[in-house]
């Protein structure tokens, strides 16, 4: 049976290849830092379960030291000229599109297949496993028809990852910070603070505090899942549901979505907001957040009104 372990091995080998190729790129003055950074990430993917908690912690400290000292970066130049790409696009056109669609199609097909046919792959991780299989299939199909130099996919993939840089592990770092926050009881303290700030006896005031609190606390934590239990315990349950007799399904469902509006406005949700800015090579790292604020603010207001209208 295929498990998530297979995907980690695949990811580990990919990062190891990026590290090795990076080390040989003499045009890059930061090649040693790059090689060390992606090499450590490869180690984490391949052997993280054997390093122990403290060992993994030291690995993270090393990653942070390399990035913090500015030792990783992309080599200048080396892009394939636009004319060459345009000529190749004219020849291969729809085939490229087909290969690009193999990955989402495989993720889609595998998600259903692995749930219907038990024993092939871990059904809980069906989508991630299918995504990885899709990558392998797309790569095999693409290589067979395009016949590029053997290392071209890994070289181009490495260049893309080098332009994302340390932001590539930002989401994983923030998720880990959330675990430390939980251990230290940060959520309870914030919940108590917000709970004491609500005007007595005002239903709309309590609804407003709940919706705004979900969005603000999500912005701080980068994740609505972390904000939800805290805001429910501080405001949602004692006030909206118990004191004002609100419908718990409405309070919970729309409260969570108010939190999602916060996710659109915070750099802490790095995988949604900062990573795409790096991936699309935007000049402003907060460009995606800037584009989202105009949707998030009115939608948050709508969510607060929806709770007020539908829950009571």
């Amino acid at each position, binding site marked *: 049976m295929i498990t998530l372990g297979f995907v980690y091995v695949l990811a580990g080998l990919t990062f190891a290849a990026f590290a090795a190729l990076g080390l040989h790129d003499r045009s890059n003055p930061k090649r040693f830092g790059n090689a060390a950074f992606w090499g450590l990430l490869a180690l984490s993917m391949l052997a993280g379960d054997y390093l122990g908690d403290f060992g993994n912690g030291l*690995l993270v400290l090393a990653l942070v030291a390399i990035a913090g000292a500015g030792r990783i970066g992309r080599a200048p130049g080396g892009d394939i000229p636009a004319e060459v790409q*345009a000529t190749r696009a004219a020849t291969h*056109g729809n085939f490229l599109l087909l290969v690009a669609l193999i990955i989402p199609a495989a993720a889609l097909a595998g998600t259903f297949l692995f749930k219907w046919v038990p024993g092939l792959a871990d059904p809980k991780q069906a989508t*991630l496993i299918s995504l990885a299989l899709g990558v392998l299939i797309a790569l095999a199909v693409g290589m067979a028809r395009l016949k590029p130099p053997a290392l071209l996919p890994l070289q181009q993939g490495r260049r893309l990852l080098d332009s994302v840089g340390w932001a590539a592990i930002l989401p994983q770092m923030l998720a880990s*910070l959330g675990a430390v926050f939980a251990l230290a009881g940060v959520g309870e303290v*914030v919940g108590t603070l917000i709970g004491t700030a609500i005007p007595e006896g005002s239903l709309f005031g309590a609804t407003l505090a709940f919706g705004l609190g979900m969005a603000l606390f999500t912005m701080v934590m980068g994740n609505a*899942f972390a904000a939800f239990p805290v805001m429910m315990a501080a405001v949602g349950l004692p006030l909206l549901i118990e004191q004002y007799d609100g419908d718990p399904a409405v309070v919970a469902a729309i409260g969570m979505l108010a939190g999602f509006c916060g996710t659109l406005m915070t750099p802490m949700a790095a995988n949604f907001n900062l990573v795409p800015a790096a991936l699309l090579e935007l000049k402003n790292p907060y460009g995606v957040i800037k584009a989202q604020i105009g949707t998030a603010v009115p939608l948050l207001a709508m969510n607060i009104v929806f709770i007020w209208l539908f829950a009571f």
Partner: protein
Amino acid sequence: MLVLIGILIIIAGFLLRFNPLLVIMASALATGLAAGLDIVAIVAAFGKAFNDTRYVSIIWIVLPVIGLLEAYGLQQHARSLIDRMKGATLGRLLTGYLLLRQAMAAVGLTSVAGHAQTVRPLVAPMAEAAAEARNGALTDDQREEVKAFAAATDNVGLFFGEDIFLAIGSILLMKGLLDGYGYQIEPLHFSLWAIPTAIAAFLIHGLRLRHLEKRMMKQEASA
């Protein structure tokens, strides 16, 4: 109260534009110390969480495929497809993607699309081409804004579609939490109450996409 120092460090660190990885580590250490943990325990807790959340970073395995296809001109091809479609405007293209992303997420297919899989190789170049088809060459700022809106549209579609699906993590979290407080609620009720917000998100973001398209044309006319 002292444990809130980590939040202050995060906010100050991001505002002052220190390297975010350093800011996160400083925040974790300060928060842990304020809660009375020793350094070794904090590093171990962080290391355990890092190892448990490795799945967050496996998306990068798609990069060799994207790199190969882009070297052979995938982005150019995506653009030329838009050039050949007469009715494909920036607003229509991104609104169509928004609807598709919401619909897919609503049936649980959240990882089928995404910034690495679909936005960078397909949606962003198509959006640029659609804007250029109407307005001629884009300025750098316009190009930046079009690409940012392509990514934003993916996020809005995902966030306000996924909660309609019954078995998504957030619904299980809501059910588990309310169960713990003695409220038994069927997952279907949470799903249904996600629909009004999904419609509102589509309308608000769709209007903004139309507005973006008009703004691009106006800027071009006045330039």
